[in-house]
């Protein structure tokens, strides 16, 4: 029962997010809006952790496998990718690495300053 109840609560917030997305002028995905709604619902005690935690934790802990079909889907666009394949890979590697180094260094720096708080 608990599992079913928790699944329903999570699905309600997912649908709620998708509905709100339709009336917003900027492209924010429904799932992120649903996330925000669930956060505030928990924060304002509309719902308890006990209403979502078991199923929610199961879903978030198993996210990796959900990305597999999307990765397989790359095979369907390979013909389009092929035209600029080497450049795209180089830009991807370069920008991702640089971004992660930046975030790492900036957070190390700011973290040090924030410690006295």
């Amino acid at each position: 029962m608990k599992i079913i109840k928790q699944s329903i609560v999570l699905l309600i917030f997912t649908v709620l997010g998708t509905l709100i997305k339709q009336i917003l002028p900027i492209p924010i995905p429904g799932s992120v809006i649903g996330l925000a709604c669930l956060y505030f619902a928990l924060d304002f005690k509309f719902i308890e952790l006990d209403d979502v935690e078991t199923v929610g934790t199961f879903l978030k802990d198993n996210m990796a496998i959900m990305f597999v079909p999307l990765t397989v889907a790359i095979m369907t666009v390979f013909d389009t990718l092929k035209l600029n394949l080497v450049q795209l890979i180089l830009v991807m590697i370069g920008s991702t690495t640089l971004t992660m180094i930046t975030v790492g260094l900036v957070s190390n720096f700011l973290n040090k300053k924030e410690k006295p708080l």
Partner: protein
Amino acid sequence: MMIFFGITLTFLSFLFIQSINKRFNKIKLDVIIFPSLIIVGILYYFNIDFETYNQGGHYLSMLIQPATVALAIPLYKNKKIIKKYAYTIMGSILMGTLIHALSIWILSILLKLDRQMIVTIIPKSVTSAIAKDLSVNFGGIQEITVALVIVTGIFGSMISPFLFKVFKVKEKGLVLGVGAHAVGTSTAIKMNEKEATMATLGLILTGLLTVILMPLFVLLFT
């Protein structure tokens, strides 16, 4: 029937890679890219088209939505951490998003990629749902953006242990969330609650910031 084919094939490939990782301590195969390669191999070998596989596969993709909603749980449970690190989080994400767009622009020019390609690539560090919309809105090629999003997430997760060691990174979750979106977040979830929280924040805020700054990037870089 085909619904079960796609789901079972995905589960089996995933379990296969996980059991290899478990048996050999030294090997850590990525649990997204390697199962996907097995599946692509099987589909090619038996001449099965992607649509047949995806009849089942897309149910797994659909679960990303409620799973993303569920990320509110670690955020709520770690409210205190968010308040404590507010400046670190904000500053790092802002710098990360700017450097990301800037490096794409410079690299694209060096490699002679055109304007449309730059617009296609810039949304790649945000989660695929946002990236797809952004790319389309500004005249990019949606399919390439989505493929790049996935590859970025996997690549970012794969190089993260190395970067953490070399640059002595403390906020590992944050780096994963900003640099490798939801795939990075799924990696951070395996570390601990704090890194999961920071990754989720990185994921959400990078997404929002990219949505807000995208018009500016397009104006400046194309």
